[in-house]
């Protein structure tokens, strides 16, 4: 298929359709509404389910219901809506049903504004709801990557029976870029054995099958402890095999810039520019925010002199980078909030500052 000019939100919606999304439930909120609008047109014409819910709370619980029935289901929202959906995220995690959420982040807290932001990082990565769980969190930097990760989101959700977040800032949602959509996935109509379908759908040899129950209740402390251990083991398996990242100019880098999403795009340009000026800077972009590529960052910390984290928030991923690289290497931060994005030249200037500071530090250490 040829590349076409696609808007981020629309491309993600169409990618979800082609990945076999059978049901979409959502509520309009800027800057993700085009996603919902595209679904409102495409899903019914393919005989699939689209429903505009009365609230984000209802939308996520509709997702929970359809996920319990074992279909590929998703919702999308933006920061204030994600806050409302947290109840459902926790139940989905507690019931181990697969579901996909797209969060097109805007500025906060509160109503904030509708400008691009990365200020939901902690909310989706650290605490997407009450209880001990993490969703898988994928963060694209381009429209093409958003399309590719949308497909992956459904695959990972099904593979691990887990919640998967595709998070992007409003800039990628609103951006138009040439990109290629995947072919339409063939629909089998098959449901997993655990799904709520009615017992008749699972009947074999005329025998009434056992009922299926989807629940997150474990009343005894021991039982709930055992479930949580099981959940943690599953999360450990995800951490062991699903880490994804991009890196450039890393081999001889003395300064490493870490950024994701749109901040990653801008930082990547800054790094390329400085390489031409012979500044030994490398670029590292986490694609999975959870599981976080902490092992790779720890390896890089063995030879880098300093790290610079660039984000469109007050420094949320910064703490994960700091934890990964330890205290022996300086980790500095450049952030913009409220919908502002760091400019390329600002990042270049900051990289030079961090580089000079690390040189001075190295000089001190030699003396």
């Amino acid at each position, binding site marked *: 298929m040829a590349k076409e000019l696609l808007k981020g939100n629309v491309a993600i919606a169409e990618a979800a359709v082609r990945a076999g999304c*059978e*049901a979409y*439930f959502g509520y309009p909120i800027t800057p993700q509404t085009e996603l919902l609008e595209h679904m409102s047109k495409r899903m019914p014409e393919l005989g699939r*389910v689209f*429903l505009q*819910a*009365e*609230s984000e*709370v*209802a*939308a996520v*619980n*509709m*997702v*929970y*219901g*359809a*996920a*319990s*029935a074992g*279909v590929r*289901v998703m919702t999308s929202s933006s920061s204030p809506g994600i806050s409302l959906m947290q*109840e*459902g995220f926790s*139940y989905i995690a507690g*019931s181990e049903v697969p579901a996909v959420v797209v969060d097109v982040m805007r500025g906060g807290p509160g109503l904030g504004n509708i400008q691009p932001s990365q200020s939901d990082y902690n909310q989706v990565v650290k605490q997407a709801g009450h209880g001990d769980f993490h969703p898988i969190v994928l963060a694209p930097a381009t429209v093409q990557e958003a399309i590719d990760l949308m497909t992956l989101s459904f695959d990972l959700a099904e593979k691990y029976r887990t919640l998967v977040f595709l998070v992007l800032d409003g800039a990628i949602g609103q951006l138009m870029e040439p990109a290629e959509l995947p072919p339409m996935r063939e629909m089998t109509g098959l449901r997993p054995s655990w799904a*709520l*379908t*009615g*017992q*008749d759908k699972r*009947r074999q040899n005329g025998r*009434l099958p056992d*009922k*299926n*129950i*989807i*629940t*997150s*209740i474990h009343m005894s402390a021991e039982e709930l402890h055992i479930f949580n251990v099981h959940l943690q083991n599953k999360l450990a398996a995800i951490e062991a095999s699903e880490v994804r990242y991009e890196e450039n100019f890393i081999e001889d880098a003395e300064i490493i810039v870490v950024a994701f999403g749109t901040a990653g795009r801008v930082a990547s340009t800054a790094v390329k520019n400085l390489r031409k000026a012979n500044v030994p800077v490398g670029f590292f972009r986490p694609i999975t925010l959870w599981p976080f590529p902490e092992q790779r960052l720890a390896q890089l910390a063995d030879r880098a002199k300093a790290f610079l984290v660039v984000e469109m928030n007050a420094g949320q991923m910064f703490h994960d980078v700091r934890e990964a690289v330890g205290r022996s290497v300086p980790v500095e931060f450049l952030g913009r909030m409220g919908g502002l994005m760091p400019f390329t030249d600002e990042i270049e200037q900051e990289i030079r500052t961090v580089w000079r500071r690390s040189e001075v530090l190295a000089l001190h250490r030699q003396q």
Partner: protein
Amino acid sequence: MVMLAPEQQLEKLVYERPSSLEMCHTHYCPGCTHGVAHRLIAEVIDELGIQERTILVAPVGCAVFAYNYFNVDAAEAAHGRAPAMATGIKRVNPNSIVFTYQGDGDLASIGLAEAVHAASRGEQLTVIFINNAIYGMTGGQMAPTSLSGQITTSSPNGREVLSTGQPMHVAEMMAGLPGVVYSVRRSLHDARHVIQAKQAIKTAFEAQMQGLGFSIVELLSSCPTNWGLNPLDAVHWVRDQMIPVFPLGDYKVADALQSKRARS
């Protein structure tokens, strides 16, 4: 020994456990009418022959373990969200029969928006609404359906309507929504009313089976434990105190259901 032909056998089975009801003990308090409501629903599911395509969405509250007591596929919803979860289940399983079982705190308080909007959309769902005018599971706090002057653990001087409002009338309110095809109130306080309640539950499920729209049966129920009454006094309290405030009756019966009832 005289051998009897099958038609001459002296024993005739007139009462047995419905197949849709599990053989197990429930956690409900003595004298609570949840057990009666469960039994009626299970009988209706059996009689309509829909056990294998029925899916229950259980609530938060006293009926939180309802999924253990029915032998049908089931989900456990978040507090008040059963109608939204049921919407998701039904939309992707259009041939199944989906019902929620909700108490007054679940449906009339925290989940009112989900219940009203599912009803307004005319979702093909059946809601069994247990109204006992109190929060049972959390130990007897005031509900939206608590009576004026009713003493609860969070209205120790009696419900004061000037500050906390009048008891909420769900069956009447639902009847005002175009998507609703059946909205009635029944009571579980004596045998005659229990039989009427069963007929209403059956009609509500039939409405869904015919794809007519949203159906809801409000059942006035007892809560001896939190009302501080013995089981007998509790059903008398339903009769004497609740029914005058929550009149029994048909608040909406779609024409398609009325003509069916006239035929039968």
